[in-house]
Structure formats: structure tokens, C-alpha cells
């Protein structure tokens, strides 16, 4: 396992330049460039706000801003966009880079690292924009700045663990990616991003707590919306689970790597 980390370290410049090229080429010939990266989640928030704010706003005790629901949505989206971007891109990263894997010798672990890195950069940019929007809406969650690195770290670890596992399996069984896209949609609606956990019937609460994303999204909302410390016990459990998942995924990746090139 330590070999993987030395490989990543010696290829750090390649990883950095890959992330930069990824961002650069994604917006190379568009007029608005990187703005698109931010406009898309903002448009989604705007749509939900317009459609659902009347129904939802009453259910948000604790903040008295007229934009309370939009703020709540933005906080949840911040967590969910990182998760879904890492998972969706990890799913296809090996298949998309198949010809490179077959023809150039380089540490294969670089590919998921690049995916994670570029998703993190996107997410940080989204966070900056979100903070600007918060300020415009008269909301100043200053303490969030302290918590965000930890929250992003846990989210990234969990997403990469899941994404890498599914990405490796997808090389052999291509249904995995299709299946996961459906799962992600369902998962989004099973996690209180758009709605509040308070509207879930009491009997289903314990079931909801089995969802790691519930804890992550709740922590983002605690910090960004209600401006208090997240539930550290829950977060710690998720973090440990995320690390175990990531370690398993890396082990599987190491076992599967030689076979992967055969079937690509």
C-alpha cells in the first residue's frame, strides 16, 4: 500500500497538471468558461427554491431569513455535488482512459486521484460562490470556514471509497455504472437535501440514520445554516466507515489492476 503513496508522490506534478488540464479543457472554448461549473448547481437551487419554498419554508425553525430555504438547499447541495461528482466520474475513469492504461506505463492509482482532485477544486469554487450568495442574502456563517475542511475531507473519503469500488467493478461489468446512476438519483431523494429530516415520520428515523450521506449532509447544514457544531459522534462513525470502505476499495483495486488492462 505504501508503494501507492510513493507512486502518487513521484507523479505529483503529473497529477497537478492533469487537474489543471481537466479544468482548462472543460471550458477551453466556452465564453463563460468556469462560470458554467457554478451556474449549473445554482440553477438547480433556484428551481427548487421557486417550486418548493412556499411548502418548505414553514418547516425551517431556527432561522428567520426570508431566504432560509434557499440557504438550506445550498448547504445540502454543497455536500451532495461533491459526493455525486466524485462517484459519477470515478465510475467511468478507468473505462474512459482504457487506451492510455494499455499503452503507457504509469501508476494507475493516479487516475482516481486526479478525479478526486479536480472534483475538490470544483467544489471549493462552488463553496466560494455559495459564500458570496450567502453574504448577498444577509447570512454570515463564519464558523463554517473552520469546519469545512473536515467536512469536505470526510465527504471526499466516503465518495472516493464508493466511487473507486464501483469504478473497478464497472470495468468488468458495465451495468455497474448504469445501476449506480439510478441508485444515485434515489439516494438523492432519500437524503434530506431538498426537504428537512423533520418531515420524515418518526418510525423511519432510525432507518434514515443508516445512510452515511444523511450524517454528512446534516453536518453541512448544521455548520452552514444553523451555524453550530455538527454532531461529531455521527460524523466520526461515518469517517471510520469511509476509511474502511476506502481501504477495501484500494485493496480491491490492487488485486484487480492487472486484470483490468486485459478486459479494457
Amino acid at each position, binding site marked *: 500500500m505504501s508503494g501507492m503513496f510513493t507512486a502518487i508522490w513521484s507523479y505529483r*506534478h*503529473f497529477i497537478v497538471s492533469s487537474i489543471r488540464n481537466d479544468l482548462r*479543457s472543460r471550458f*477551453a472554448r466556452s465564453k463563460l468558461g468556469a462560470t458554467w461549473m457554478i451556474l449549473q448547481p445554482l440553477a438547480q437551487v433556484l428551481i427548487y427554491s421557486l417550486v418548493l419554498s412556499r411548502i418548505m419554508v414553514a418547516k425551517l425553525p431556527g432561522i428567520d431569513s426570508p431566504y432560509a430555504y434557499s440557504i438550506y438547499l445550498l448547504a445540502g447541495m454543497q455536500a451532495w455535488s461533491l459526493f455525486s461528482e466524485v462517484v459519477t466520474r470515478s465510475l467511468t475513469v478507468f473505462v474512459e482512459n482504457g*487506451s492510455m*492504461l494499455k499503452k*503507457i506505463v*504509469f501508476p494507475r492509482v493516479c487516475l482516481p486521484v486526479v478525479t478526486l482532485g479536480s472534483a475538490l477544486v470544483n467544489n471549493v469554487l462552488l463553496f466560494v460562490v455559495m459564500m458570496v450568495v450567502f453574504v448577498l442574502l444577509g447570512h454570515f456563517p463564519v464558523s463554517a470556514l473552520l469546519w469545512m475542511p473536515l467536512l469536505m475531507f470526510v465527504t471526499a473519503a466516503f465518495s472516493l471509497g464508493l466511487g473507486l469500488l464501483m469504478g473497478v467493478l464497472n470495468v468488468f461489468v458495465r451495468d455497474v455504472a448504469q445501476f449506480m446512476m439510478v441508485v444515485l438519483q434515489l439516494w438523492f431523494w432519500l437524503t434530506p437535501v431538498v426537504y428537512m429530516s423533520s418531515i420524515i415520520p418518526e418510525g423511519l428515523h432510525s432507518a434514515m440514520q443508516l445512510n452515511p450521506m444523511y450524517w454528512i449532509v446534516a453536518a453541512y447544514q448544521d455548520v452552514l445554516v444553523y451555524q453550530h457544531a455538527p454532531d461529531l459522534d455521527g460524523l466520526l462513525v461515518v469517517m471510520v466507515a469511509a476509511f474502511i470502505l476506502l481501504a477495501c476499495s484500494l485493496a*480491491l483495486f490492487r488485486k484487480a489492476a492487472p486484470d483490468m488492462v*486485459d478486459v479494457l
Partner: protein
Amino acid sequence: MSAVVLQVRNVGKSFREYGSEWRRFGSWFGMRSPNVKDHWVLRNVSFAVHAGEALGIVGQNGAGKSTLLKIITGTLGATEGSVWASGRVAAILELGMGFDPDLTGRQNSEHVAGLMGFSRAEIRTLLPQIEAFAEVGAYFDEPVRTYSSGMQMRVAFSLATASRPDVLIVDEALAVGDAYFVHKCFKRIREFRDQGTTLLIVSHDKSAVQALCDRAIMIDRGCLVADGTPQEVLDFYNALISEKENSTVRQTRQEDGTAVTVSGTGEAVVDAIWLEDAAGNRVEFVGVGDRVDLVIRVRVDSALAQLVIGYVIRDRLGQAVFGTNSYYTNQVIVDAQAGDVFEFRARFAMNLGVGTYSLSVALSSTETHLVNNYEWRDLALVFTVANTQRTTFVGMSWMHPQITISARGRADPPDATQAGIHREPGTLENRS
């Protein structure tokens, strides 16, 4: 002999097919699977390459050459056996791999050099050399999507060969590009070899293999079937691609150590072949520019609807100098009966440079020997061209120039420095 730098030992590769993908997943954790289907694409391949040696690898499509190269490069794992290499192994398996069309040539070079494992400091020193060798001018800072394919190939090749590796693997990458750059590429590869780089070259380009390699191996259906001089192996290869049912390929060693390859189904065979001078005497030494007759006597052993006789004159390296056949000249023999004997006579002036030449003869039903190959005979005749009566000249062809030199008054001496032209003294390459 110099040290071994690449050792391929008993390498085999099988693409495994599992009853279900679940069994494959299980196999990673040591589970044995009952119905694994092995598809061997390479088996029992062993050879060693020494420092500075150039090895050509030939074989038909799907013979397993690319798989072998990928295993040597390290992108593909061998199922059995081992590959050992000393020093840095670089592979040009596909030019332009990893290029992003929206990035400039410079950005792509920087990025892909990182992918090839160079450190940032190394890239900084290599980049000006890459730019200089590629000769794409200001385009180096333009997006790669605006490049012509030739330009992209220039940048990609410069990048791939930016630093001299200990083992360089080249896979048919040199077939593209303009003649000038192809020459430049070959020159660089030759320089690498002279400096001690071991070359592994896979190509269908016979002349490339002959010009660059000291040795060749042939892979057929996943096995190593021939290992010898490029000429021998390429003759064998040529014979094998024309191999049909009932056909045999025989390679026999002559007294002088060279190998003669004969293949074909045998409905028609070459009985005799010789060169005649203008006086009708059989000759082996021919003067430059002399008129000769090439005579090929063919015996038909079973009835044939069509019979085409063809020949190729090859130079010492096996490269074709001239070749034609009776299909091209509209002299196809039709309805030949068993027992017929034909004499093919080609009269021409021996306008070739000094040296030894060989003749390959083909008997077939059409213009290509791939359809019905009755007989294909390499080194059917070897002859020597000597310059006895002509003016001294170099090169592989006698062009019979009419040279006139006449005085045309006097001119001011040219001022080379003002014109800014840098002239190098003319040199004549002398290859041995």
C-alpha cells in the same frame, strides 16, 4: 558479446474467460474457479537482447506482437514466464497518446512528459529540445486540434524520444509523416542505437526492419517461429503470408551460410534461372550498363487456367530495386497443360550500382502471390554488378549522365556572411 539488457523467459499470455464475472472477482481473493477458459495469445516466447542490438519483430496481424510488446513495456502482465529489463524502457506504441486537442503542443508535451515519468526539472530541460526537434514553429503554442496529422506526429515523436532510453520499443509508429521527418526519426533512432540503446522494432515496413535491425524474430499464432538475420526472417515471413493449403515453406541453408526460402503449392515450378550477356553466355558478373537477358524456365506440373511469372531484383539488404510480372505486361499464360515448359526472357540494361544483387521469382495465377502461390523462391539467383567500363560513380543506380562543363566568364565572389547563408561542406555518406 555485450551484456544482456532484455531477457524474455518463457512468456505466455492468456486472456481468461470466467463462467461469470463473480468468479473473476473471487479469483482476486484466491478462490479457484472450475470453468475458466484460457485463450492463449502468446506461449513459450523466450529471447534475449543485448545492449546496442536492434531486434525486429515481424508477424501477421493478430500474431501476438503487440501483446508481447505490451508485456515488455509493462502495461500488460504476463500470465506465465518473466520479463527482465535493465534501465529505462520507453515505448512508442502509439504516437499522440494522452494528447488533449484543446491544449497547445507545449502544454501537451509538458503533461505527457509527466505521464512518462519525468520530473519537473527534467521536463524543463527537455522541453526546448522537443520544440527544436519537432520543427513546428509557432504552432508549438497553438492548440493541437489545429495541427495537421503530420504536425501532431512530429510533436509526439519528439516527445517520445526526448531522452535516450536504454531500451526503445517502436511499434509501426514511423509509417506516417512526411518523408523529411521520417528520415529525421530514423536518424535519431540510429543515433540512439549507436549510443547503446537497444531497439525493438515492430513493423510491416520491410525496409525499416532491414535498414535498422541486426536480428529479427517472427511471431506466428503466439509462438516464436523464427530467429535470425532480418533477411532470413523476412523471407520466411513473406513465404508464410503466401502460404495456402498444401503449400510448404522450406528454408535451406546454402554452403555460404545464407538461407533460401521456397514456398508454394507446386503446380508450377522454376526449373532453371540464369542471366545471359549479349553474346548469349551465362554470366554471374555483369558490367554496369551492359545488356542482359534474365531467363526463367518454368515447368507446369498440373493444368493451370492462368500462370503469371514475376521477378524482383533485390539489393544486398533485401530491398526491392526493381520488380514486375507478366500480368502487368499483359503476357499472362492461359490454359497451361501439365508437362508444358515455358521460357520467360526479360531483356534489360543493367543500370545498377556496383554490388551484389539477388533475384526472387514468383509463379502465381494473378498479379499478387497471395491468391494462388505456385512457387515463390527467394535468392533464386545471386549476381554481382561490377564497374568495368563506366566512369566512377557511387549509389545504387547507373543514371548515365551527359555532363557538360563550359566556361561562362567571371563573376564577383559571393559574400556568404552578408547573405546569411550557412553552408556546410558537402559530405558523402559512406555506409558499410
